[in-house]
């Protein structure tokens, strides 16, 4: 089973955990104590958890976030979401083949009165925004209940092994997301004002101004004066042939499996989407020792930060811009992906199809705010604020800052003696959420002596740790102190701090002091599962990943002193010294094409729109062509949106199908959303004494 667990990681500590035994379809298997069932199954190489009652399609992990029910298994006789249920000693886990059987229950449970709790503020979500807001409230003595559906605070920060962008003073730039998460969480846990409810899901805001919360298996009613929606975002899904195969899932689910649960869910990964989420997922995969076969992006350039894209390219991952996915191929699980080039109108160009073997396809085509709860609360006449991705999709650095603003706004609502929010905060918030700006071609200064940083950062992004960390103040921001491009001017002492802190790994050091004709370059490196030792030849590459020749390593630091970023040194000819940015680690052979696509899925018309209820794009199209524009009528006829996820996944896809049929946005009638956001057992609502697990 160890084959599918991470054995080492450049950033994440691999702790020794005790083994327990569980049974999968009567086969005894090992799991790690405390992990969820889905991860225990993945660790044993089991990726198919059952088959759908409607069409027999393979079911498995999809959101890894408790939002859908694709990962349902039967645990000790009861159907549960495997991504949210801890595996325990001797647990009997069975696959769900068709409709599950409801277990017999002979005893009538005892009930307790559902507790009703009044609070000043109810914060939904303990990620960067919710935590930052909570810290403001705690600071000013405002009491709040913070609910989060995971077992640890931090939201998506707990998955972010990379160093953060943004500004050092406002959003801890240069620190790794996981470390920022821990720091914020600690501050909140220490405060008396914030009552933290872990494993708790906000189910609905009712018209009587009460919020239904599932608190660790018990149903509670919270009556808040103010609600802060910091519930984050969910990933958009994509419509393509074979999108229903096992092994197609979101980048968030992937990061959960790898970075939280330390599972190696795939050997060969392909990524759809060149935004920051997709690019970072690719980098995380490499850090975990997973081969990244390629990344496809429909636009002519990646939408994410150039430094993220460059990192992947340099390490050897091909990025196919102006390409789209045609199909995921395979019978039950993904065995390959077929992509093709598109023209400027996104039409597929003939004879450009390419097929690559891979076992997993990540979808990273954008996020949308989780707003349902806030919308319901507003309809009920409750006062609602929003922060982070729930307010607006942006980087976590932005979420932390606008969380801070929202927190203070709420404090102002509760307390009259708090001053206005400084205008400068709003300006900074605007900068931190900026999209990447223009790309400039930069030529390093014509100096060939001494030591100096070479800054391979060519795109304006909100980021400034290099200028903050330099002990001689020699790195200056051109224009805006956060958004501007950094420029070296002054006296470099060769300390390498800028090299180690740059989140984009886009600064190198060139040292001419020992040998002006064969200077030493210092390169940042944090893919520790590919060890690099003194004397090893490494394939040097320029910013775009083009080879500059092979050179031997002359120095390696452990990374202990530099926040787990290793510094690699090599002596190279001065002509290429300033062009070297990194070195290739992934062999070109990883991204080999195959001639013909694999056998196609056994399920006909697999361009699935509603994964829960198995509704295809073809079925939707037929109804649209009959003149139907009301998503409620489409739901009534096809059940699209009626499944366990509550149209969280298909809503966008449905609208896309309508739009592709020429229906304007104004004509489309929205689906009515109803409580509850996630499925909850009856006995929990009924108030079973002692809670679900009693």
């Amino acid at each position, binding site marked *: 089973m160890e084959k599918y667990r991470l054995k080492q990681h450049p950033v994440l500590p691999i702790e020794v955990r005790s083994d327990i035994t569980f049974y999968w379809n009567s086969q005894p298997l090992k799991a790690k104590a405390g992990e969820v069932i889905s991860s225990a199954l993945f660790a044993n190489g089991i990726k198919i958890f059952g088959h759908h009652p409607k069409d027999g399609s393979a079911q498995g992990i999809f959101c890894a976030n408790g939002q859908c029910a694709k990962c349902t298994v039967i645990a000790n006789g009861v159907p549960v979401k495997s991504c949210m249920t801890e595996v325990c000693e001797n647990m009997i886990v069975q696959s769900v083949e068709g409709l599950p059987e409801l277990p017999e229950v002979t005893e009538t449970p005892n009930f307790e009165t559902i507790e009703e709790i009044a609070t000043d503020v109810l914060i939904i979500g303990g990620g960067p925004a919710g935590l930052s807001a909570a810290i403001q409230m705690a600071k000013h003595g405002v009491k709040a209940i913070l609910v989060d559906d995971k077992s640890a605070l931090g939201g998506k920060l707990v998955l972010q092994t990379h160093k953060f962008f943004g500004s050092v003073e406002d959003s801890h730039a240069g620190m790794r997301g996981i470390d920022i998460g821990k720091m914020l969480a600690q501050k909140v846990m220490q405060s008396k004002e914030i009552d933290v409810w872990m494993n708790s899901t906000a189910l609905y805001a009712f*018209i009587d101004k009460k919020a239904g919360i599932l608190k660790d298996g018990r149903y509670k009613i919270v009556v808040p004066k103010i609600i802060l929606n910091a519930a984050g975002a969910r990933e958009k899904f994509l419509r393509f042939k074979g999108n229903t195969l096992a092994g197609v899932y979101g980048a968030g689910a992937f990061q959960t499996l790898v970075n939280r649960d330390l599972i190696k869910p795939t050997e060969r990964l392909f990524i759809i989407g060149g935004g920051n989420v997709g690019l970072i997922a690719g980098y995380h995969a490499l850090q975990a020792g997973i081969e990244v076969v390629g990344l496809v992006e429909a636009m002519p350039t990646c939408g994410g930060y150039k430094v993220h894209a460059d990192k992947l390219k340099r390490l050897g991952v091909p990025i196919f811009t102006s390409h789209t996915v045609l199909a995921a191929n395979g019978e039950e699980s993904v065995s390959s992906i077929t992509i093709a080039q598109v023209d400027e109108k996104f039409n597929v160009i003939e004879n450009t199809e390419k097929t690559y073997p891979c076992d997993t396809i990540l979808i990273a085509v954008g996020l949308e705010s989780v707003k349902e709860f806030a919308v319901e609360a507003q309809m009920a006449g409750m006062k609602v604020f929003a922060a982070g991705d729930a307010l607006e999709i942006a980087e976590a650095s932005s979420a932390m800052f606008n969380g801070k603003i929202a927190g203070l706004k709420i404090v102002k609502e509760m307390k009259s003696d708090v001053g206005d929010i400084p205008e400068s905060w709003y300006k900074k918030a605007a900068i931190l959420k900026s999209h990447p700006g223009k790309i400039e071609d930069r030529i390093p200064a014509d100096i060939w002596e001494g030591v100096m940083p070479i800054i391979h950062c060519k795109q304006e992004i909100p980021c400034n740790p290099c200028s903050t960390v330099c002990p001689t103040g020699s790195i200056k921001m051109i224009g805006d102190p956060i958004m501007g491009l950094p420029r070296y001017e002054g006296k470099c002492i060769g300390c390498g701090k800028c090299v180690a802190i740059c989140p984009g790994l886009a600064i190198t050091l060139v040292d001419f002091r020992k040998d002006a004709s064969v200077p030493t370059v210092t390169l940042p490196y944090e893919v520790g599962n590919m060890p690099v030792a003194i004397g090893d030849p490494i394939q040097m590459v320029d910013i775009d990943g083009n080879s500059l020749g092979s050179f031997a390593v002359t120095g390696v630091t452990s990374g202990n002193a530099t926040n787990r970023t290793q510094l690699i040194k090599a002596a190279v000819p001065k002509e290429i010294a300033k062009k070297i940015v990194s070195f290739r680690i992934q062999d070109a052979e990883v991204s080999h094409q195959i001639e013909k696509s694999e056998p196609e899925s056994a399920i006909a018309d697999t361009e699935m729109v509603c994964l829960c209820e198995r509704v295809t794009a073809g079925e939707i199209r037929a109804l649209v062509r009959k003149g139907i524009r009301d998503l409620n009528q489409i739901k009534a006829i096809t059940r699209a949106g009626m499944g366990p996820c509550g149209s969280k996944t298909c809503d966008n896809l449905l609208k896309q199908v309508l739009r592709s049929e020429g229906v304007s946005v104004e004509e489309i009638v929205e689906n009515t959303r109803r409580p509850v956001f996630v499925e909850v057992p009856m006995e929990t609502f009924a108030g079973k004494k002692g809670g679900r697990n009693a």
Partner: protein
Amino acid sequence: MRKTYDVIIIGAGSVGVPTAMALAEKKLSVLVLDALASPGQGNAKKAIGGIRATHSDYGKIKISQRSIDIFSTWEKLHGDEIGWMSNGYSYPAYTEKDEKMLKDLMKIQRSFGLNISWISPEEYQKLVPGISMEGLRGSTFSPEDGSASPLLSNNAFYFKSIEYGAEYRFNESVAEIKTDGNRITEVVTSKGSYGCGYMINAAGNFAKEIGKMVGLDLPVNPDSHEAGITEPMKRFFEPMVVDMRSAPGSKNFYFYQNNEGQVVFCITPEPPILGVHNESTSVFLPMCTKRMVALYPRLCNLKVRRTWRGQYPMTPDGFPIIGAVKELDNYINAVGMCGQGFMLGPGLGELIARIVTDTKHADDDRILESFDFYRDFSGQELFK
């Protein structure tokens, strides 16, 4: 140019749509107007799907029997899956009073030829395995009653009516109904105006407002009921289970497992919640699930997927108001369904078509007796 139709129906719901189907099948030109965006978007989609003929009133029984014919043969005749199941209804009795009432009622129901019988607690346990036996005295069981998907049915009837030539205009609310003496001449909407032979009020929640436009005071007042649906499971019980008892905050509640395997449930709040608001309160889920789990402990682990609120357009005596009126020559009521629009709809649609075309059956007048607009509304149905 104003277009004129043989019949204009106000409301594309569980009554309006099958009525349009029945009229269009008889080659009449039909226009259905609805303020919402598509068929069945008012209360039709809120119905949980139970269909029974085991009422206590001749008219309701006859109309529902015809409805059951239509539902049960639909797929065979027309090919569309509408989720019909002949899973029966059951009213378990946990008090002596309820047992007596149900048994008395059964005599009447059987005299009308309905297939309903009394079964022992042990027999009932076989139909609903795991139901609480504590104090259970037995249950009625009417195996020919059943259920269907209100969503699929309404759409099946809708597309069939279009095939027969009916026209629909959605997102059009009625602004004015013009009359000339005792005839309706024109229906004016937010988007146009239409002439008509007959006008049928099938406006559900808004029947009273439509009535007012033609000078009729219809005693139809909606009250709210809340419902929910669970995840699907392998079939584990058969009939609709109706618990007639009251508990603080509620009167009866009922649930069944639909043909998708999902348990659909509904409760009647006490006191009634008047009005047409559809937002859920925090009270429903704990109240309803507690009663359900206590009655049927096996439901403990069943996950609730979604809940919603809908209305019963109620009349004072619990009977619909159906048929022509003295005040107007070309107006027909099909209102006040009291929560039974779905099960009455198809049979009722045909009856209305017979009224419009003057082809009433011999017993139609007897059917319509209890639904007369001019009746004394102070009576109560023996059994709702």
